[in-house]
């Protein structure tokens, strides 16, 4: 069955596990502010590649797992993932016809949206939101996107 393809693929599972691990990789000093969003990158790659199997629910769940691991306010990343995944579903079918640069713009908008949802929900949980460095992860995530996407694509569909 085509439907079970991503779940039985080792690339799918390993990429997700690695994404969660990388999120926790200890960074120091200034680098801490530039931590990219590995879970976002990997989840959105799979949403793009398998739009008929994976959807908003999968993204939401991935976000909730991230919340649990990170000890963040429960529902913060889940909501951000869910909403961004929905936006991707609207723009997604056309993504394949876009040029690389155009795709990068879409990812940038989604990542920005994701981070804004995280910041706003963080406000509810009593965190401050008054510094530009909160948007740095968006920049590093967008810069990483082409590499992650190409690497995962090559591994998933070698033919």
């Amino acid at each position: 069955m085509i439907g079970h393809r991503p779940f039985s693929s080792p690339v799918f599972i390993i990429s997700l596990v690695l994404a969660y691990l990388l999120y926790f990789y200890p960074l120091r000093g200034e680098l801490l502010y530039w931590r990219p969003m590995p879970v976002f990158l990997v989840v959105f790659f799979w949403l793009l590649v398998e739009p008929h199997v994976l959807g908003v629910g999968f993204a939401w769940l991935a976000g909730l797992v991230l919340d649990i691991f990170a000890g963040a306010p429960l529902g913060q990343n889940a909501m951000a993932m869910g909403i961004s995944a929905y936006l991707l579903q609207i723009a997604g079918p056309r993504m394949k016809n876009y040029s690389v640069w155009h795709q990068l713009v879409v990812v940038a908008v989604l990542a920005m949206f994701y981070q804004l949802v995280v910041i706003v929900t963080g406000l509810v949980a009593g965190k401050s939101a008054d510094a530009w460095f909160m948007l740095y992860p968006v920049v590093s995530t967008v810069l990483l996107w082409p590499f992650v996407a190409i690497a995962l694509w090559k591994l998933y569909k070698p033919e």
Partner: protein
Amino acid sequence: MKLIVLVAIALILLAVDAFTPWLDPVKSRLSLASLPLHWVTSLPGRVGEWTERSLMSRVELEKENAFLNREILVYKGQLQRMAAISAENTRLRSLLNATEMLSDKVLVAELIGVSPDPLSHTIIINRGRVDGAYLGQPVMDEKGLMGQIIEVQLSSSKVLLLTDDAHALPVQVIRNGVRAIAEGIGDFRRLNLRYVSPTVDIKEGDVLVSSGIGGRFPAGYPVGTVLDVHRDPGQPFMTVEVEPSANIERSRHLLLVFSEIKDFQAESAPSGEEPPHGGTDDRP
């Protein structure tokens, strides 16, 4: 449709989490799940440290050994004087009818995880309930106070650092005993002093220690050094920047302080009621 339901669930979770303590026990259980992740991601660093240690040459080891021996000698010498001074201090305090100074015990702990969020300054250490760690316990490194425990698991605990913007602690200037409140601002290398009026005698280079007021931190542990004092005539209070003494970002080996204050607290609050968020109750 699905999206609306999922977002609604997320919103409800967020609201329950933010405004009620119902989810706290669940969350502290769930946070155990992240321990293996912290463990795996800290492997590269620890392997590096280990290889560095095991590849050290004999000459280097001997040099380090000699240095450590010298250091111990110096400290022992200072300790002898300390003993005499503390005896004298106890005697003088008893003359003043003041309570006896409390003696503190310490336990060495190791850092096993750092929060990935630059806005929440928390770390995870490898000591928990089985080692006697308790909620609100002060944590320090070899240079000064680092923070306090806000979550105790069986064999690990979560520590809120002094620099988190939800943390504040009462301090005192060594030079003249002026009291103030040192507050984290979310920067690993800065604390700010709150409510310091422009007439207060505080200047650059002053050393701050914990004052012991509030009963959470024992008195007399170094907290930081005043970096800059800024007077703005239009403002009711001065801006005082403090550099923390502890290597908040770098220390891997920490000390848990067991002070007698713990018993005192237990007596005064027998209901077992603990503040919802460790740091906030030290605020005025």
